[in-house]
Every structure is written in C-alpha cells, then in structure tokens.
C-alpha cells in the first residue's frame, strides 16, 4: 500500500474544513436525540404499561412521533458525513481508512439494528402486543448508544493515534483493536454518550418549560418536563467527572491542545487556571487567574509544570487559540450551570416534594436545552480546532489529507444552502407536530389511541 496523498497546490482545506465542520455540527444535534430519545420514549411507554395512565401513554406516543422525524433527518445527515470522509478527506482515508475502519464497520451493524427496530417499533405500535412492542424498542436504544461509542472511537484515534506500524513510510501492520481502544477512547466516548443523553434530557424538558411559562401547568406538561429534566440533571454529575477525566487525558497526551484550551503561552511551573480573556500577540489578556489552579487540576500537584504553546513549533500550533480557550471555558461554565439547575430542583424536591414554583426556574429550564447543545458543540470545537493543524495528531496534517480535485468550494456552498433549508424546515415541522393535535388538559384513553405515531 503505497498510495500516498500527493496533494497539489489546488487543494482547498478551508472549504473542506468548513464543510466538514458544518455537517458534523448539524448531524451531532440530531444524533444526540437519536441516542437519547429512544430511552425517554421507552421509559414513558413502560410507565404507561405498568400504570395504564393515559398521560404516560400519550407522552410516549408524542415523543415517538418526534423521534421518527428526527431519526430520519439524523440518518440522512449522517450519510453525507460518510461520503464526505472520502470526498473531502481522500488523503486521510486512503492511508488511514483501514486503521479506523473497524469501529466504523461495527457501527454499520449498529445502524442496521437501529433502523430496523425503529421501523418495527414505530409502524408496529398498534400491531404488536404491548410487551413485544416495548421489547422491540430496547435494541434501538442500545444500538444508538453503541453507534455513538463506535464513531467516537474513530475520532479518538485521530486525537491519540495508536495500533499501526510504519516501515519506510509504508503501513505494514495494523492492530485494529489497539487502534480502536486508544488513549482517548475512554474519556471521549463516555463524555460524548453522557452529552447525548443530557442534550435529550434538557432539550426535551425545555420544550415543556416554555409551555409552562405560557401557562400550561397540567399533569401532562409537568411530567413532560420533570422526567427528562431529572434524567439530565442526574447525568450532569458524572458528566463533570468525565470532563475532568478528558482534561487529564488531554494534559498527558495532547499537551499543545491543553495549552490552547488554557491560553498558556509559556511552559509554567504552578500554572494558573485562566478563565475567559483574549489571546493575541502570544499572550492571554484580561483573563481571571486562579493561582496554581491548572497544575492542580491537570496534575493534582500545585507545583507541577504545564507545557505551554511555546514548546511547540509555531507551524504546529492551533491557529485559533482564543476560540479554543473560550469554547472550553464556556462548556465548563455551562456544565456547572446545569449542575446548579439540578441542585435547585433537588433541594426543592427534598423540602417540598415539588419543583420550584418560581418563574425563574422555568426560565432556566427553558434555556437549559439550548445551553446543553451549545456546551456540546463547544466541546467539539475544543477537540477539533484544538487539534489543528493535525488531522491525525502528530501524524498527518490536514493539508495532506484533503482531496486535491478542483472545485471543492462549490460543494461547500451547496451544502450550506441545503442545510439552511433543512434547519428552517425541521424546526417548522417540529413546531407543527406539537401544535397540529393539541394536548387535552386531561388526556383520556381515546386521546391516546387516536394519536398516530407514524
């Protein structure tokens, strides 16, 4: 295999990177609901079967209807990603495709399971017995989590490449399992799966939070808010632990990315934790600094030395340090904000067995959905932009991976146009779905049975 990328000067990494970033950032939102929503639907359906309560049963059906729409759009937006891996990053794939291929191949199986059982689950709602139907939903949830795991394994490999042998520039040996389970796999996959579940939890809760602010305080809306909100709030705790794990992994394996995340220009003993600020002229300005904080967090030792950006040759540093630093800080800030929201709910529940009556609580719930999506997107910006200029960390540069054929930028504009339309239409149709059949204040069995899932 000596097919090396012979990239001509015509290659256009900027258009290719923008196209990849846009389609990934779009797909990942839908993918999060694809991972999390089946869990929510199954929970509501299970409660509905156990209690016969029409509120749970109606919630299950209405969430399932949204799931059908989101899944379809998510699946097709994932397809273009697979094609873009080759169309944009042919150099990467012809050289490294086989090394990261195994998780993708297994992910393919997981996609099949997801799509097959989703068809059975949604279209079989009134054909299967309740128990069989509930059981048919379980593989969707399991396969969704599995696909998130496998695809993030591939991304982890780009951050912490392992499991291959190069002799004289030729790839002679591959250990697919070592490549799949690399140093970044653990923290990245756990952090991402939790993020997907949190996006679903807070995202769904925020829809009902808005409805409550508009005056709908019936049991349907209470449960619609409290079930996903409780789930999301509970997961925030392990998510922060996982984020800390990820940060420590980055500190050991990707010191340049850590330096960019912290805006740390020079290698420092007892490095401060910097919050906010602006990086320019080789320095971080106007940041709030907690003395020794970074050394403490990254190495559990206030005097530890942390590598700064100056340790890396200028050509190998990420160009957008401010973006990486602020993205990271905002993600962490939102993480703690969500934790505070969860604590607020827990405290009230403990004292009063109810959620806080204040409108401020509902407002916080209403924005928590968008905030969680923002945190998730910013986490990805931290990871991906912080890795620049490498596509495979310290192994292959983005410029050597891109497809050299002319005209790639037109593809980018076509993708921008389609995604702009798709964004508007998806939101409009989702709004239509929630309004076309209004929710009665006290749903009866007839309301449940007449609601079509597909």
């Amino acid at each position: 295999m000596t097919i090396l990328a012979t990239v001509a000067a015509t290659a256009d990494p900027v258009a290719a990177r923008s196209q990849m970033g846009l389609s990934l950032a779009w797909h990942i939102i839908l993918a999060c609901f694809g991972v999390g929503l089946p869990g929510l639907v199954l929970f509501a359906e299970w409660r509905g079967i156990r209690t016969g309560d029409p509120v749970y049963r109606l919630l299950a059906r209405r969430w399932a209807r949204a799931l059908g729409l989101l899944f379809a759009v998510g699946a097709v937006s994932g397809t273009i990603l697979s094609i873009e891996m080759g169309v944009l990053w042919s150099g990467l794939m012809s050289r490294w495709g086989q090394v990261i291929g195994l998780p993708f191949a297994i992910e393919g199986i997981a996609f099949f399971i997801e799509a097959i059982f989703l068809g059975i689950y949604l279209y079989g709602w009134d054909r299967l017995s309740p128990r069989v139907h509930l059981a048919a939903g379980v593989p969707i949830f399991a396969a969704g989590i599995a696909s998130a795991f496998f695809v993030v394994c591939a991304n982890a490999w780009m951050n912490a490449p392992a499991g291959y042998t190069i002799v004289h520039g030729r790839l002679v040996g591959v250990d697919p399992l070592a490549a799949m389970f690399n140093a970044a796999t653990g923290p990245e996959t756990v952090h991402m799966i939790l993020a997907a579940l949190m996006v679903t939890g807070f995202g769904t809760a925020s829809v009902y939070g808005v409805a409550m602010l508009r005056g709908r305080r019936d049991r349907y809306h209470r449960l619609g808010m409290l079930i996903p909100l409780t789930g999301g709030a509970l997961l925030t705790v392990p998510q922060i632990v996982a984020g800390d794990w990820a940060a420590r992994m980055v500190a050991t394996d990707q010191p340049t990315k850590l330096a960019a995340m912290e805006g740390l220009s020079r290698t420092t003993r007892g490095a401060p934790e910097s919050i906010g600020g602006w990086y320019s002229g080789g320095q971080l300005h106007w940041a709030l600094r907690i003395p020794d904080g970074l050394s403490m967090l990254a190495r559990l030792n206030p005097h530890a030395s942390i590598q700064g950006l100056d340790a890396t040759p200028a050509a190998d540093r990420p160009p957008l340090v401010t973006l990486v630093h602020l993205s990271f800080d905002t993600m962490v800030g939102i993480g703690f904000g969500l934790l505070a929201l969860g604590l607020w709910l827990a405290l009230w529940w403990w004292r009063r067995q109810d959620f806080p009556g204040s409108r401020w609580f509902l407002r916080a719930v209403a924005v928590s959905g968008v905030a969680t999506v923002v945190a998730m997107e910013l986490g990805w910006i931290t990871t991906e932009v912080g890795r620049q200029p490498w596509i495979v960390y310290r192994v292959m540069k983005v410029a050597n991976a891109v497809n050299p054929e002319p005209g790639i930028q037109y593809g980018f504009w076509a993708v921008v146009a389609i995604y702009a339309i798709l964004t508007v239409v998806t939101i409009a149709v989702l709004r239509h779905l929630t309004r076309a059949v209004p929710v009665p204040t006290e749903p009866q069995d007839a309301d449940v049975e007449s609601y079509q899932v597909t």
Partner: protein
Amino acid sequence: MTLANVLAVIMWVGVTAYALFGGADFGAGFWDLVAGRAEAGAARRTLIEHSIGPVWEANHVWLIFILVVMWTGFPGLFGAVASTLWIPLTVAALGVIGRGSAFAFRKSVTARWQRRAFGAAFAASSVITPFFLGAAAGGVAAGRVPPGVGQGNAVTSWWNPVSVLTGALAVIVCAYLAAVYLTADARRTGDARLVGQFRACALGAGAVAGLIAAVGLAVLHAEAPTLAHGLANRALPLVVVSGVAGLAALIVLFLRRFLIARTAAAVAVGAVVWAWALAEYPYLLAGRLTIAAAAATHSVLLATSISLLAGAVLLIPSLTWLYVIFQREPRRNVAAPERTPAGG
C-alpha cells in the same frame, strides 16, 4: 479464497442489497413523481408511503455499509473513487438528504401545498440520487478512475457515454423494481385499478430497462472494451441469466403472478450486478488496481470479516422480522385515498 476476496464479496453483497432494496425505494419515489395530479395520484402515493415507510431507513443503511466496508477493506479504492468522483457523490449525498427528509416531512404536515412541496422534493431527489450513483458506478466501470488520490478528471470521469447510460439505467431499473414490488403490495389492498396501474408501469419500465441495457452493451463495447470482453466471456452465463430472468419477469407480470415476478425481477437485476464484478475480476479499477493490491492488511481484513459475519447473525433475523411484519399482516387504512396525517 483469500480474505481480501471474502471482504470483496461481502462488499458486493452490500451493493446487490442496496440495488434491490434501496433501489426499489428510489423507484417508488419515481412513481410518486409521475403519479399525476393530487387527486388522481392519491391512491398511488398512499400505497407508496405505506410500502416504503417502515423499511426505507433500514434499506438505506446498505449504502453506508458499502462505504465503510470499502474504506476499511480497500482504502486505496475508496480514496481514488471518492476523490475523483466527488461531484456525483456529493450530489447523490445531497439527494439522499432531500429524499429522506422530504419523505419524513411530508408525512408530518397537513396543508396541501406543503405536502405537494415535500412530495416534489422527495420525488425529484429519488431520481437524482440513483442517476448520480449510477453515473459514478459507470465511471468506475469505464475505467475513468485511476488509482491514487484525485488523479482522475473531476468532470469527464462521470460525464461520459458509459456513465450517462449507467445513470439512466439505474433510474429506470429502480423504477422497474419498485413497480414490480408495488404491484404485489397493491394486490393486498384489493384495489384492482391500483394493481393495473402498477402492472402497466412495471411492464413499461421493464421493457425500457431491457432496451437501455442492450444499448449499454454496445456502448461498452466501444468505450470500455475490457469490461465488454469480460461480459462476453467469463461473465456470459450471468448475463444470460439476467436476460432470461428479465424476460420471465415480464411474462409472469403479464400473467399476473406478482410474487414470482418479484423474484424474477430481483434475479435479473442481481445477476447484472454480479456479472459486472465477475467481468472485472480480479480488478477493482479496470486494469489498474486489483483486489489483492488494494486490500488492507491481513489483521484488518480478519477483524472486519469476523465482525461483519457476527453482525449478520443479528441482522438476518431482524431484517426478516421487519419485512415479514409489514408484508403478512393485513393493512388497514391503506386504500383510503387521502390519509389524514395525525399531526402531532
């Protein structure tokens, strides 16, 4: 058989399945496009929606399956094909997005103009996607994709006689398969007029497909002599099988034996797909890149083959269940001319 050949066969099974199942879903979109004005075409559109609704997402995964098996097992092939053919592949990807999302949106809205707009997007992209995928395949078949990254011509690699013909053939074959499958589905609704319409569509599309295939052979002879040679020799038995099955399908369709027609049509199309592979063997890129040369390292081939075969143990019963549930049980509501979407 070498491991590389095993993985090549697995990939080709994926191509066949995508052609037979995914292809029929695109074809259904083609018939949606030509079903006529809203009232007249309502029954046909409803049947199409009911037939492909539960299965299209699963059928669509075959495309992803082909891509990941290709980049894992034959990374050099993937790099060469995807870089040179980036234009048709990007258009096809956008078509996939349009098709899938418009189909899902149409089911979710009620206003007539919205259903029409989404229906049009669904139907148009159902034609665009197979055309460009077919044109890309034609470029590979015609030997227009050299090995290496971005070595071919970004335009003539897919805008040439063989590609255009293959693209057209792909569209019409999809339409043919869909019409044959839908005729049998229509019979279950008990609507004789619907059966007659789809039967006529199937007969017409089958005849056109046969015609284009015949012209295609002549064009191949001039444009892709090695492939034509392979088809005339090593792959001849499969070409014959395809022709016989194609004719048989038309005859049994005429005789109204719709379930047999399904099988015959699938055999006719599947045989062409395998004839192509056999005619090119052992090359992946005509005359330039063999299966052995493009293959990944042994450990990757082994791990991937084992994973996929293990996956098949899960997939085959699941897929069977999916198809059986929606084939065997009586369909309610199907014949209702304009379904009232539930909103939701």
